[in-house]
């Protein structure tokens, strides 16, 4: 999975640079987040602007990151969801679990 990391203070912005987040590539994101947690970085924003399609594995990777961040008193927030991706969070009720922001600035300011 193509991922771009940008650090701003103690917040890491992870931009997923793939059209599809599925069982083929979501494991990569999960592992990358585990590395960050090991380094003590546990405030993450996942920027999904490039993602047109997400399946249950993609959602699962985000839930994994969210739970690990919370367990470390950090947070994992989402931004820039395309409408179809947004509707997957609603279908699975995960929009009640995650803080979802329209753009990166809003997400940054919320920390």
């Amino acid at each position: 999975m193509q991922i771009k990391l940008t650090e701003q203070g103690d917040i890491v912005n992870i931009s997923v640079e793939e059209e599809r987040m599925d069982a083929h590539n979501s494991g990569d994101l999960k592992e990358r987040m585990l590395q960050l947690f090991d380094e003590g970085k546990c405030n993450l924003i996942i920027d999904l602007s490039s993602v047109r399609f997400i399946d249950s594995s993609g959602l699962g990777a985000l839930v994994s990151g969210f739970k690990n961040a919370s367990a470390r008193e950090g947070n994992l927030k989402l931004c820039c969801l395309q409408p179809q991706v947004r509707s997957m969070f609603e279908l699975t009720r995960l929009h009640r679990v995650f803080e979802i922001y329209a753009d990166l600035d809003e997400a940054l300011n919320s920390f």
Partner: protein
Amino acid sequence: MSKRIQVDITVPNQTKYLGVIGRIGESVVYSLKGYQGNRRELAYHLNLVLTEALANAICHANSCDPDKDVRVLISASDKDLTIKVFDQGQGFDIEALSKHKARTKDEGGRGIQIIFKLMDRVHYTREENRNVLEMTKYLH
């Protein structure tokens, strides 16, 4: 044959082929000229259902063995869209899964639930030496 499109796909048992199968499913939806609903949404849903069902066949039934193959049949008319995914694994109890609701914060266990939510009829049956997950969506 009646007025049906039939697409029979076989790919190596690897998750990297999920994308092409999903896209083929979307192409089939875009060819349903008579469909009155939201075609983009239906295309996404079919892509998703194909992805979930295939990922299960590849990883759960075929143990991610890259030397196996996996097969899916997409069939569509103006009335319905049917997907059959074949596997030769040990099978599983889909009825039990359809009743048990995963908790929202579980990491996995959403695939079959999504399939039940998006499709109108779902069956998993044993046929000779293989299992078939058959999923139908009615188009009006």
